[in-house]
């Protein structure tokens, strides 16, 4: 079960990375980052079955922090939307910065 969980979470993480690098919509990029965080959560939970509660405690921290991050991030996206009327980052190439 451990190997399957780890494989699945690695796949999820990769999907998130590819999404961040290829998508142009700020909201979708943000969703991909959340996908990566949840892949990490899955890894923690899988390892927690072997090692005990520490991994599960970590998951709660990650969820809390992700919520705080989402609050700030969405506020920033709205701030940009007010200037541009769009959340499309076509003129910001994240790969090139």
């Amino acid at each position, binding site marked *: 079960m451990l190997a399957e969980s*780890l494989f699945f979470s690695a796949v999820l*993480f990769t999907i*998130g990375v590819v999404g*961040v690098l290829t998508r142009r919509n*700020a909201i979708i*990029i*943000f969703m991909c*980052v959340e996908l*990566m*965080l949840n*892949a*990490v959560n899955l*890894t*923690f939970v*899988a*390892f927690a079955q*072997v*090692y*005990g*509660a*520490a*991994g599960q*405690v*970590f998951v709660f*921290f*990650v969820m809390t*922090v992700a919520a*705080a*991050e989402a609050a*700030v*991030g969405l*506020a*920033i*996206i709205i*701030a*940009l939307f*007010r*200037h*541009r009327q769009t959340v499309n*980052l076509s003129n*910001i190439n*994240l790969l*090139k*910065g």
Partner: protein
Amino acid sequence: MRPFFDLSIPSHLSAALVPDLILMGGAMILLLVAVWRRESSEHQRFVGMLSIGLCVVTMAAVWIMMNRLGTATDGPIAVDNFRWMADLVILLGTIAALALGIDDNDRSGTTTAETHVLILLASSGMMLLAGARDLMIVFLGIELMSVASYALAGINRRSERSAEGALKYFLLGAFSTAFLLYGIALVYGATGTTGLHEIRMRVLEHGLSTSPILLIGIAMLLVGFGFKVSTVPFHMWAPDVYDGSPNPVTAYMAATVKAAAFVAFLRVWLEAFPSEFGSWHRAVAGLAIATMIIGNAIGLQQRNLKRLLAYSSIAHAGSILVAIAVGTTQGASAMLFYLLAYTLATFGAFAVIIVMSHADAPVMTADLNGLWTVRPWLAVAMTVFLLSLMGFPIAGGAGFLAKWYIVNAALQAPAPQYALSIVLVLTTVISAGYYLYVVMLMFMRPRSLDAPAVPATRSLTQAVMVACAALILVLGIAPDLVLRYANVGIPSTMVPRGPRPVGTPGTGQAPPAATALAR
């Protein structure tokens, strides 16, 4: 059987978090104070002054703790002089950022008092980071610091560039956090613990040093930290974000945020993975070399002063990485001194930019033409800061010694780093191309007739400039004032053990020749 998860603090160390708690509690109270009144310029200044007061109190608490508590080798919170010195550097930067922030808000007509509280919150995350000996606390510290910085980057809601920079900072910051977290998860998976000390013990006990999961985890952690400290393949966000943010926030991000990330970086690397030295050394050294060369080379082409300093800060990240690649305690104390010198010079240089800036337009290098003829002291101060950033002997003060100690640490390590030292020295020569160019503009070019008058320096900005310049010069002559504490800074637990020969605990002392030269 020992519990796998233990966040309890040994009773004799229960005072270890007092400074952090003072800062966090104070920041919460100040948040209430900030929103209590209507936004106004006076209220913004009032909250800012209270914040500076809070930082001074926290510094006093750090100082008391440093002298009262010994060194602890257990528990998830570090108690050693490395942490206390890092705390002092961070708080010094925070005070400078707050002082510059008060004046810059006045200048630009910003009346949000929350700016100062956000800086305090970010700093409390950094102090947590400096004391973290558990990956869980490293994560919480980094996030507390980053989330507050995202908000700070976009604090000027009237500016589109600020919003764009904030969005880029946020997306890439969150992206890098995910890498960092995945690294933590894999290291936890390989060793079954998140405590730095325990990780090293488990790796040695169970012979995990070639475990693929552990190595992938370390690589992921390296990517995560690489983003946070803006090393070269992961640096592209830095110039845009620095360019878009308000000046005091940029100085804060370039100096203090980076310093805190480096402190955690070094502690994780030396305390958790010393036995992996052979695996990560080449990667870190490669990052350092690429960062120094590319940061300085692109810096040469910049004509926007803020972007120039952004690339300068990337190049400095490369030099600091050398201290980590060396992997000794001597490197650690050299890094502390470097961070202090770099913080002082960066805040000084940004203070000059704040004086020079008018409206929302970026300050170009050409705006400094002939500054010597209109504001001689401003030109002299800027020269000190730029020479210090470059690492010029004597006139550059602490900046020269900082680079000297890093080169020293690299050459005296059990595995001497000749290549790294040579690149460090050569890129310093390259960096003269843009630092001295700006100095040349200030002193040798005539001031153009239609150049706008340089506004009068506000009192707090002036105080920051004078203090930074004075400290740089004093530390350049008498580095022992700080080194005394940075020397004992590193606990013996940080001496890397394992297959590599054990390095003698570094002294970080300059050889007599250097001290004589500096005098």
